[in-house]
């Protein structure tokens, strides 16, 4: 069953097209990765699916409903986003932040009720942040903050979870912890995940399918083994790489090759 559908999407900020002729379907429960170099339109694509930007051409559907005909609040009940990081000017507590995920489900004057507190608590327990509930966001580490932002997204009870380079500021252990958690939610609750990433190897490890973007168009789409090949990666990223199958995970792994670096190691000897 298709949950997100894009048909011939085109978008431009100014004169040039940022995205053009983007069509794909995401089935319910899929873990989909979006890869591509800087400026290839990855983040723009996420913003279109989340309705923050409106496409100039084509159509976008979530659960069979056209985004263009949905109110922001209705869309926020279906789609949630985990951003890269959050900036806090004023001190909110972890619990307050997670409860904000309930806002799309409340009418303007309504306060959160018992049910909302329970849902928020459940989201915090799933992400291991319940013990942090009374802490101020500003006192948390980067990894803890990311888990709080997942908890907020889960409190939204979305059908689709969008990740915008969520592990950009995390070390490898916290990257793996993060994606393990997302994968578990993806499998246990049939939560559809669309993740934008710069990390080809992480995407290769976790995604069911990957979209490779080049200059605003889909270069190729498919399972990691089909997409992550030397020719595709070199075509899109314009840099020499080698691709091996990792013997433990069985997934393709990319190693960038640098002519200057090999040159340098020679000259050091």
């Amino acid at each position, binding site marked *: 069953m298709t949950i997100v559908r894009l048909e011939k999407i085109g978008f431009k900020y100014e004169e040039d097209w940022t995205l053009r002729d983007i069509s794909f379907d995401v089935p319910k429960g899929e873990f989909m990765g979006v890869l591509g170099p800087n400026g290839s339109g990855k983040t723009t694509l996420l913003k279109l699916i*989340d309705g*923050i930007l409106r496409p100039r051409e084509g159509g976008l559907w979530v659960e069979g409903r056209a985004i263009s005909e949905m*109110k*922001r*609040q*209705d*869309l*926020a*009940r279906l789609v*949630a*986003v985990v*951003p890269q990081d*959050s*900036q*806090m*000017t*004023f*001190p*909110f*507590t972890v*619990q*307050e*932040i997670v*409860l*904000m*995920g309930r*806002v*799309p489900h*409340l009418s*303007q*004057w309504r*306060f*959160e009720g018992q049910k909302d*507190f329970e849902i928020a608590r459940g989201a915090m327990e799933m992400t291991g942040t319940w013990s942090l509930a*009374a802490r101020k966001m500003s006192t948390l580490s980067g990894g803890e903050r990311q888990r709080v932002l997942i908890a907020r997204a889960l409190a*939204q009870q979305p059908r689709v979870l969008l990740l915008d380079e969520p592990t950009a500021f995390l070390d490898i252990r916290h990257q793996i912890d993060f994606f393990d958690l997302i994968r578990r939610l993806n499998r246990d609750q049939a939560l559809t995940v669309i993740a934008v990433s710069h990390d080809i190897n992480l995407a290769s490890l976790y995604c069911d399918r990957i979209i490779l973007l080049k200059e605003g168009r889909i270069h190729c789409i498919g399972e990691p083994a089909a997409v992550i090949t030397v020719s595709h990666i070199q075509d899109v990223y314009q840099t020499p790489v080698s691709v091996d199958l990792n013997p433990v995970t069985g997934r393709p792994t990319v190693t960038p090759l640098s002519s200057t670096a090999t040159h340098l190691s020679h000259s050091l000897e």
Partner: protein
Amino acid sequence: MLPYFFLPLLFLSFVAVFSSRSDMTQGPVTLSRVLRISLLLLLVLVAVSLMAVLIGSAKIGMLSALRELLFGWREGSTVLAPEERTIIFSIRIPRVIFAGIVGASLSLAGVVFQALLRNPLADPYILGVSGGAAVGAVIGILVGAGAVPFGISGLAFAVSILTIVLVFGVARTRGEMPSNTLLLAGVIVNSFFTAVIMFLISTSGLTELRSVMFWLMGDLSLAEGSEIMLTGLFLAAGFVVCFRYAKGLNLIVTGEETALQLGVDVEKTRKQLLVAASLVTAVAVSVSGTIGFVGLIIPHMMRMLLGSDHRLLLPASMLFGGAFLVAADTVARTVAAPSELPVGVITALCGAPYFIHLLRRKTL
């Protein structure tokens, strides 16, 4: 009783009540918590106002004044002389009510501006509303518009509204008003108006100088009954608008894109809040002058005590800001009796040290 003990006492009693009740300062915001804290602060406001009415430069016994307040409406139970009654009912009570309304207006607007601009240093005057009002008022004083009802305040309000339109117009690019552009536009407009005021002052005569100075530092003795009513109406309407968007404001504080993702109509929310806070500020400034510090420190104080949720912060700041200005004004009109100090002097003198104390104890 010395009025000088009045302010510290107010703060101490308030802080004591809050720190002794952790259920008031901690945990998520619920309707019942908002109501309980608002009720408590309303009691603080009423108590402070009552004391403020009983204190003054005219020698009226506090006890007999209290008896007059409580039972004076009864036939034949008047204990005060007619001129003393006039002082209490026609001078002190309107002034105390006015101080409360202005303090509440500035605090409400301060909370909204700090949140919308995501800048802890923002205050109600940051977008140039006060500069505009000041130019209008100074012109009014210099041409003798005080002789006409609504002369000075009307001019001040007109120029401050012009300023808002100007600043919003300058900051608006392609249908959006980015916070930073807004902030810069406000700062520029403010410094331009300061220059205009300096020019006007330097070319004016000595007789007007004192009125100009008093206006610039804030003077609560000028308002007419109708002006007080009008300020109160704007405050009430402003509060309803701000409280309506309080939940959206919470999300905007954590980032405008996050707010969009969580289903908030950010443009509409920002626009409504900016207009509401600017209007509330413009009216308050036009009738009372540029009283500093209230709109900056009260929001911070409340945020430190109660957290950042605006559903609690807005009513709490409003009520406590009102109480604060009533107390400050009482000190201003009694401490150097029979002459009066501008209330802005007191708010800055009391506010700044207390704020530094808070800063040292806790981070913003």
